[in-house]
């Protein structure tokens, strides 16, 4: 039992904003959704690192662009230098969940800007709700997710994003270990506020801070992000988790994952995500992107009713690459 007694307020209570959001009227006339000044076709986006448009285009062809599932596209985390990622095995299937230890492979900032950004800039998708439902298309903003282990690194990454018109917003992945404390940068409110402020000054583009769930007080981290100037926060990232190699006679057992530990995602953590999203939505006035274990419209709706403005689909993309389109359509039908 972690929680003592004392009832929590109803999610979203006391926040007119949430009421407006939850009501069908929160949509703009054209059936689109406003988020940090961006116009989105609907409320469903992808979690960083769970959909690679470039690879998917080669696999699915033109259908991907025609029926693009996400209202905004969040890139996999980009770092200053290229990273190969962790040695395999990188995956472990848990009870109703996935542990990954991918290790943020990416081509590095320069190659990303040169090769990927142009390919990601022209995405559009259908608006599932409103007068022109199913017929009008709007642009899919590109959100670039970046990670650095110091404020200076993050500033450099944000500066580069700022200069590219194709990039509509920046998401800071603050789960990188901080050399001084050993903790994730994002788990320390003071450090987090400092880092967010440093990057905030460098760009007028919407700045989203992706919080770490492995913190004692996630709402405090969200407030720090807001105080530092974040336009939105997103959560939850994966929970630290681990698996061991299968037992074999006489052998010492090692961690299964090449990276040692990994991050748990999927249905197993859905109720943990809902609790964190609800607590954060009550603590900040900036919009919240909720994610964690979303497989269907009921799960997306839970996050929205807990105060999320947008919902991100992560691991479920792996089971069905068109999952987000399915959820967006259903949400639009129920007026969300």
């Amino acid at each position, binding site marked *: 039992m972690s929680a003592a007694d004392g009832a929590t307020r109803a999610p979203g209570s006391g926040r007119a904003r949430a009421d407006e959001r939850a009501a069908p009227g929160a949509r703009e006339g054209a059936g689109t959704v406003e988020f940090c000044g961006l116009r989105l076709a609907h409320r469903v986006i992808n979690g960083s690192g769970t959909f690679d448009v470039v690879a998917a285009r080669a696999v699915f062809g033109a259908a991907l662009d025609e*029926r693009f599932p996400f209202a905004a596209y969040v890139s996999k985390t980009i770092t200053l230098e290229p990273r190969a990622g962790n040695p395999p095995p990188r995956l472990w*299937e848990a009870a109703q969940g996935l542990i990954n230890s991918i290790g943020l492979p990416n081509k590095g900032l320069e190659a990303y800007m040169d090769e990927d950004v142009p390919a990601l800039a022209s995405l559009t998708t259908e608006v599932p709700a409103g007068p022109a439902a199913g017929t009008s298309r709007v642009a899919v903003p590109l959100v670039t997710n970046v990670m650095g282990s110091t404020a200076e690194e993050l500033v450099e990454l944000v500066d580069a994003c700022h200069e590219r018109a194709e990039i509509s917003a920046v998401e800071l992945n603050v789960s990188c270990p901080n050399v001084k404390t050993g903790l994730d940068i994002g788990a320390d409110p003071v450090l987090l506020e400092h880092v967010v402020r440093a990057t905030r000054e460098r760009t007028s583009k919407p700045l989203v801070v992706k919080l770490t769930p492995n913190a004692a007080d996630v709402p405090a981290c969200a407030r720090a992000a807001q105080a530092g100037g974040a336009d939105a926060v997103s959560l939850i990232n994966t929970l630290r988790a681990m698996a061991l190699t299968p037992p074999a006679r006489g052998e010492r057992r090692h961690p299964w994952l090449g990276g040692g530990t990994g991050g748990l995602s999927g249905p197993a953590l859905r109720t943990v995500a809902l609790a964190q999203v609800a607590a954060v939505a009550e603590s900040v006035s900036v919009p919240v992107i909720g994610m964690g274990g979303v497989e269907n419209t009921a799960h997306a709706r839970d996050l929205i009713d807990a105060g999320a403005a947008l919902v991100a689909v992560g691991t479920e*993309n792996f089971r069905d*690459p068109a999952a987000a389109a399915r959820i967006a359509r259903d949400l639009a039908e129920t007026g969300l």
Partner: protein
Amino acid sequence: MSGFARATAPFARRLLRVTGVDPLGAYELLRAADPHGPEPSPGQFLMLATAERWGGGVDGRPYLPRAFSIARRRAGESHFLLEDVGPGTHRLAELRAGDALWALGPLGRGFSAPAAGKRAILIGGGAGIAPLAILQDTLGREATVLVGFRDAAHARGAELLRGARVATDDGAIGHRGPCTDLLAAELGRDPDAVVYACGPPAMLEAVRAMCASLSVDAQLALETGMACGFGACFGCAVPRLDGGYLRACVDGPVIDAAALERVPEAVGAHP
């Protein structure tokens, strides 16, 4: 080498109707109607999950879909050869005609056609013979087929292929020993061939090493753990000869043997 046509996958998983699951020795041959699915190229795979009760097995697994080579494609039906090695294959083996099956694909890079004049040697071990069947169907010319199995029950799998020469670990059927013994003999006789291989990592590594030393082209169909099958998760990493990693699902599963330093121990692959 000229390529076979590589199919583009429909952008969403689709429901297939199971038409039969029949034992083939130690394996199950799963057949499912997929009338609207594109014709796969040999070596491509589908991500499969049952529509009902995917999950609920030991430790709440399976949760993610599982990768299976398309073993054969006939009149709108796709065939798969599986061995019950864990919760996913166990659940699939339980399917009965009429049951519903989620499928995504065809996925991945398949085999490339042999250059004109080159003879093809197909070599497979265990359930790894599956993609060789559709390859044999597609080749349109005679090919040498060498297959290896643990024992007689598994060797029944050879019925999937025409004119296969069999090796078994215990000598119950055919040559006693690894099927790579048969390959060594074939290549010794005439090394002007392309080798197509699929099977357990140790077998693939033996094929790779043998072909490398004889400068014979080899295409290896790899198996790794996969979460997505379409390049989204980066979970299927295979170390590349020149450093860094391939994604087995989009850069493979069929890889030119020359691109690998060695065949990695499979992760989440069948035995």
